[in-house]
């Protein structure tokens, strides 16, 4: 698998912790893997939980109308890039 960057690993830990993902360890989340739907199988409630956790940790507000959630949350990599680009 592709290596995670430091920021991606930190974000992966936040995902596993805030969503109580028992069967996944942070280091196992592939950077390009789909987080929602078929990939990690997360759903919209997870997206809200995760958005709150991201806001608390990085002071970044996620934004996306329903149709775009898949893009922002597409993968660990895209979410990490989004946070980096929108950090205060």
């Amino acid at each position, binding site marked *: 698998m592709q290596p995670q960057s430091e920021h991606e690993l930190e974000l992966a830990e936040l995902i596993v*912790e805030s*969503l*109580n*993902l*028992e*069967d*996944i*360890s942070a280091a196992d989340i592939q950077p390009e893997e789909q987080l929602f*739907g*078929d990939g990690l*199988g*997360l*759903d*919209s*409630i997870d*997206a*809200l*939980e995760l*958005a*709150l956790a991201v*806001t608390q940790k990085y002071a970044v*507000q*996620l*934004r*996306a*109308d*329903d*149709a775009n*959630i898949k893009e922002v949350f597409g993968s660990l990599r895209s979410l990490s890039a989004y946070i980096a680009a929108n950090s205060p």
Partner: protein
Amino acid sequence: MRRSDAITNRGTDEIIIHGPDGEVSVGNFIARAAKLAAQLPDRRYVINLATDRYHFILGFCAAIIAGRCTLMPPNRLQQTVQQVAADYVDCISLGEDSIDGVERFEIDFDSLAATDSDVAIPRISSQQLCAIVFTSGSTGTPTPNHKYWETLRVGTLGNVELLMQNVTDRVNLLATVPPQHMWGLETSILIPLFCNVAVCHRTPFFPMDIADALESLPEPRILVSSPAHLDAFFASDVAQLKIEKILSATAPMSAELAKNLEQQFDAQLVEVFGCSEAGIIAKRSTAIEEPWQLSRSFAVEVNDDGTIIRAPHLPEEVILQDIIEFIDEGHFRWCGRHQDMVNIAGKRGSLADLNLRLQAIPGVVDGVIFMPNVDSKRLAALVVAPTLMPSDIVAQLRLGIEAAFLPRPIYKVLKLPRQETGKLTKKSIVDLFARTKRSRTTKNGDAADN
């Protein structure tokens, strides 16, 4: 006896939608829907997957005018849609995305809007099958509910009476819930056809988006949402504006969240009780009252088998898994569910079924899946399984259970607090869960094993 009724009872000059390109009047909207109706391919079913609400309502009304039936899958996952398309072969799909193996019809919005002109308001036969709404239980197998025009029209008139009293001047409605879900359909698609409501085309999701979309709407505003969205919206504290009314359904809301929302947005919070089969049945002001006020559209009978809902506009009686107790003719208290049914993300599942699946996993000695408290968004599990890791248990459950019903977290314990009769009380489970959770948090939050 055949009768037909107008698809809308509104004035043609009133505004029905805040579309992507501005406000659209009822007259122009109906003209566009009628034009689209004439363009739709000759198929009996339309799978409407549109996420933009203007796109959805236009496709929905065009299908009704053309005498077609709209199919509304419980989600937009490829597999789910393909399954519905396989069961209803004579279909096309509408929406932004295409699904492999399902023919998609692309709406030409510009041409529809190019020659706006008034047309006669179409009349729809009361017996026309307009929609099939699918609900998915814990196994994820969709169950169809047939919606005839009579059911949708008369049901909506009842909902307007119940939820929109005193609306004379136009109100502007924003919904965070998808139009394909019965809650979103009844409020954001059907109410605008029968009440002076203009609905926003957007479906905002994150708190900032909800704030944006609300700010784009003139007052007075109505927000249609769910406890999950509203909880995040309140907690993020991103908006300071007035919301006339907030309508919540799909899962129970706590009185505390209801009070917080009322205070923060100077709003009236109305919680709605209903189900996909019967629609909206009752409402309450959760911040100040516990009993539910029954909609005048329904007659309810409580007997040993459960709660039976009847209404002239429903094709058949609906049996609820909920146990209710009437205080007076028009008000009832909710006392729990038969078979311990749970509602997660607008989906209903049976705890008994989930527990059977848990206990059937090889290596699981004993275990229970439960809802920790009224505000929980997820089920949790306590499991006795000396040889298994929580991850093994999730992997096994995943094989037969829809993701929304997977318990998180799963805590391993030495034994469950069963009484001599083998019974588990909710209190003893919740206490053990709280104790286990506390002891783990003090161990640096290590949730991987124990």
